[in-house]
């Protein structure tokens, strides 16, 4: 397979020689770890607090096959975004756009699955105020869903700007920064999938 020349990368004229935007993205990701750490802790504290609705609990309400497929799609979207980054670094705009759009579609599919899951839960009587367990579940997975939504918007914006020829300057760095956010959303779900859905209730 023929190798393609990598796009030249500008040196960053900062104290550390690193991009301020990328440093800012990592700082935000570090602080987001605390945000989701607190939400996961809250969920684990209230996972057995069913209030007046003991029939609504983790062993009766979750649809593991459905959530497993959603998880697989989100995991593969992380592969999509690194393939988009690889395209951007090699100057292959077509490949970059294809994978940006594919990643956004996978993210949108995950989000649609979450909306469907919430709708089914609501129909089964699992509301936000049903019990401390349901509140902590909706807050944790809902905030994660909002992050996925923001990520999908960022990916579609990059795709649209590239299509309009407005993503030329520092292209690979911008794609990498959006990719970092997307991977963070993915690693949070990796934890949520195990802690919330897979670990059997006592």
């Amino acid at each position: 397979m023929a190798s393609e020349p990598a796009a030249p990368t500008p040196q960053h004229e900062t104290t550390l020689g690193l991009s301020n935007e990328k440093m800012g993205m990592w700082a935000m990701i570090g602080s987001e770890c605390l945000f989701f750490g607190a939400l996961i802790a809250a969920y684990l504290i209230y996972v057995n607090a069913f209030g007046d609705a003991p029939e609504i609990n983790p062993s009766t309400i979750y649809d593991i096959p459905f959530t497993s497929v959603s998880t697989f799609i989100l995991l593969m979207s992380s592969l999509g975004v690194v393939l988009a980054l690889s395209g951007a670094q090699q100057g292959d705009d077509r490949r970059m756009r294809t994978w940006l759009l594919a990643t956004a579609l996978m993210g949108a599919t995950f989000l649609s699955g979450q909306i469907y899951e919430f709708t089914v839960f609501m129909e089964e009587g699992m509301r936000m105020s049903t019990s401390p367990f349901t509140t902590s579940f909706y807050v944790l997975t809902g905030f994660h869903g909002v992050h996925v939504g923001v990520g999908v918007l960022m990916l579609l914006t990059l795709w649209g700007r590239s299509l309009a020829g407005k993503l030329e300057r520092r292209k690979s760095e911008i794609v990498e920064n959006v990719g970092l956010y997307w991977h963070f959303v993915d690693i949070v779900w990796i934890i949520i999938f195990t802690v919330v859905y897979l670990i059997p209730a006592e």
Partner: protein
Amino acid sequence: MADTETKEPHASGEEHHHPGVKEYVEIGVILAVLTAIEVGLYYADVPRQVAVPALLALTAAKFVLVVLWFMHLRFDSRWFRRLFWTGVIAASLLFFVTTILLTF
């Protein structure tokens, strides 16, 4: 499609080295297999004392693979590693302190 690795030198003297497409796909396949094992463990008739540590180990493996290869922390500047792991350690402390306070 190129399988070559990209190296971007930084003024700080640290190499900015990214994996190639082949390596990314290999990591993606490993992540898919680990997820399949997790779901398999959920359905298998495994005692809770075995299933929970195994699920947590598989989750940690997936977390580390994404962070080190897809987020390039294995190759990027140590400053990014410090920012990220500070957040992870602080979140873990917050988690354990909250859990201990509300348990006892």
